[in-house]
């Protein structure tokens, strides 16, 4: 069968046609409700996608992630609470617009920003991923080892205010990944005599436990009141508004794409950069903070611009750039696929079908955004007390489903408690997950590199590619450490009592 018909065969699956629009819709609804995060949604729904075709399963998760990025803007605009961390900047101008009776205009502005950002991001994915995968074919074990180390360092550096805590999180994740039978020597590691642990710590309970349960546990621990949402009015995003915000949207999308493609940076950081740039250069910059459309457009185009861009290192090199792509990497492995240069070599129709479906998902954001506009206020106002018990049941069923054992369910709750504790200790959970996911890859490449070099550790740092990657790791560590040192000095000079 030729390439095109294989692509069409992938795309013509009835499950894909039915479930992709629903996944985008589900993502939007989840993103719109404060307290429900896209990570939680993707993690909780991952087990149910494993029974589907690989392409459908992966695209459902991507669709949820995409939808939730726009969904986050809904509660930001209507309730002054970002539905997702990436919508933090949308609040600054979206809510003032809603309070001035222009909620509809702000939502439509966010929608167009998201749509254009997302489309350009997919274009970047199509243009760059294939090229990067070709480049990745030159990578041997030591280059992959260096790349994984670099990714972990970037993620650790950017995920929290402290680099050592971030790296400790990554190390803890790698440690969790070593549990089970050592594949080379067939000796058990940290199994404590448990038969269930011989296969290692199950990925899904760890994922759901660390990313879905802590929010639920913290909700029941505190007495947070649900907020009221502003009503949606009849104001519209006009052609003049579109012309006004288009340059900002294009700039924001570019920022999102560039920052999304670098492992570890992600949507939240890119929105702050795009917002700051728009505040400097947008035509309505004097309105920033009081209800500037460009503020909403910059934030939304930047966060949606990251979405497909984060898939670039994942698809091309097999390295996840954020938590969602780490979950996607897990989903790929569950389906027996290994993202990276080999996927481009062996299953190009899969990749091309994915590109087309990603474009379609972008159009679904626009479609659902307009169709759902009048329902956004009640959706954002659903009380969390009514939502969390069903999510909990979904977590239990999901954790149980894959292994058919209650061990997975108990493990999930254990990681849920651990997730709350880690938040108290300010150790970032994303670094743990990414360390866990990359653990076997890191160890495998290290072992292979040492075997090739006959045990010469210095060989890991030889060759232009490996050396460049290690140099980048060192530069990141030094930069972050220097900034932290400077910050602490400024803090000491500024106030004798450090921040509480």
């Amino acid at each position, binding site marked *: 069968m030729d390439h095109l018909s294989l692509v069409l065969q992938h795309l013509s699956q009835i499950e894909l046609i039915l479930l992709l629009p629903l996944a985008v819709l589900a993502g939007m609804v989840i993103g719109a409700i404060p307290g429900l995060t896209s990570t939680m949604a993707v993690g909780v729904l991952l*087990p*149910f996608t494993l*029974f*589907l075709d690989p392409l459908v399963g992966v695209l459902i998760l991507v669709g949820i992630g995409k939808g939730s990025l726009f969904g986050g803007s809904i509660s930001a605009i209507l309730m002054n609470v970002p539905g997702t961390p990436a919508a933090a900047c949308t609040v600054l101008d979206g809510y003032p617009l809603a309070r001035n009776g222009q909620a509809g205009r702000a939502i439509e502005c966010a929608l167009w920003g998201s749509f254009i950002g997302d489309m350009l991001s997919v274009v970047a994915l199509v243009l760059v991923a294939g090229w990067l995968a070709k480049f990745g074919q030159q990578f041997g074990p030591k280059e992959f080892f260096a790349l994984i180390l670099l990714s972990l360092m970037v993620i650790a550096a950017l995920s929290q205010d*402290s680099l*050592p*805590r971030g*790296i*400790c999180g990554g*190390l*803890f994740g*790698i*440690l969790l990944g*070593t549990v089970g039978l050592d594949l*080379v*020597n067939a*000796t*058990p*590691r*940290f*199994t404590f005599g448990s038969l269930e642990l011989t296969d290692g710590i199950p990925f899904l309970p760890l994922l759901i436990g660390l990313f879905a349960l802590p929010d639920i*546990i913290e909700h*029941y*621990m*505190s*007495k947070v009141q649900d907020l009221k949402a502003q009503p949606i009015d009849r104001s519209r995003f006009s052609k003049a508004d579109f012309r006004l915000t288009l340059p900002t949207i294009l700039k924001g999308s570019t920022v999102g794409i560039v920052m999304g493609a670098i492992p570890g940076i992600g949507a939240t950081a890119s929105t702050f950069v795009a917002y700051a740039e728009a505040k400097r250069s947008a035509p309505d910059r004097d309105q920033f903070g009081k209800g500037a459309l460009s503020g909403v457009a910059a934030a939304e185009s930047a966060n949606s611009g990251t979405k497909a861009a984060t898939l670039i290192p994942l698809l091309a090199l097999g390295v996840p750039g954020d938590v969602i792509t780490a979950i996607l990497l897990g989903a790929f492995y569950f389906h027996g696929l290994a993202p990276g240069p080999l996927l481009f070599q062996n299953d190009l129709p899969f990749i091309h079908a994915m590109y087309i479906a990603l474009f379609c998902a972008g159009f679904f954001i626009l479609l659902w955004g307009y169709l759902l506009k009048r329902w956004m206020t009640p959706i954002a106002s659903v*009380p969390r*007390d*009514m939502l969390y*018990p*069903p999510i*909990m*049941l*979904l977590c*239990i*069923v999901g954790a*149980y*489903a894959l292994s*058919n054992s*209650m061990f997975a*369910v*108990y493990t999930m*709750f254990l990681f849920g408690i651990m997730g709350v504790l880690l938040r*108290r*200790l*300010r*150790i970032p959970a994303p670094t743990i997950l990414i360390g866990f996911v990359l653990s076997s890859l*890191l*160890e495998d490449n290290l072992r292979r590199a*040492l*075997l090739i*070099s*006959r*045990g010469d550790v210095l060989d890991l740092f030889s060759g232009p590619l490996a050396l460049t990657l290690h140099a980048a790791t060192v530069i990141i560590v030094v930069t972050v450490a220097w900034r932290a040192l400077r910050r*602490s000095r400024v803090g*000491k000079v500024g106030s004798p*009592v*450090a*921040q*509480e």
Partner: protein
Amino acid sequence: MNAERLTAAAGGLSALVLGLLLLLFLIPAYVPEPAALAPNAPGPRAIPKIIAWGLIILGAFEAVTTFMSGERIRWKRPEGLGRLFLVGGIILVTLLVTPYVGMIPAGIVMMVAITSGASGQRLVPSVLTALVFGGALYLVFVLLAGIPVPGGSLWG
């Protein structure tokens, strides 16, 4: 005041303790060395040892620098601890009865108990939500997708 500074340094201290625990107890006790190792290849203890040293060095560095910086954190006592324990108890009972009554029926009762019992929502919407969600879960995941969930020994 020092207690609050120690709380701020708790992340680093935990990493340090975990690293020491790994190096002194967990690795020797729970990672056996194989009888023969492939030449030039690191053994099964290599990565855990690197991790342990990493945790010790970074944990100590983090703990000391945070403590010296004078940063203070006070952990607040959770306001809804009673509610959390009630929810935890409901979940525990649900998990214990699941093998007998099945996951979906036990889950429906769990949802009602949490929404109306622990969260004080009205009973009728809670029951309706639980029934609709439980039914949808059964229809989509068990009947359509064929995902196995425990059926319950009571029903045969």
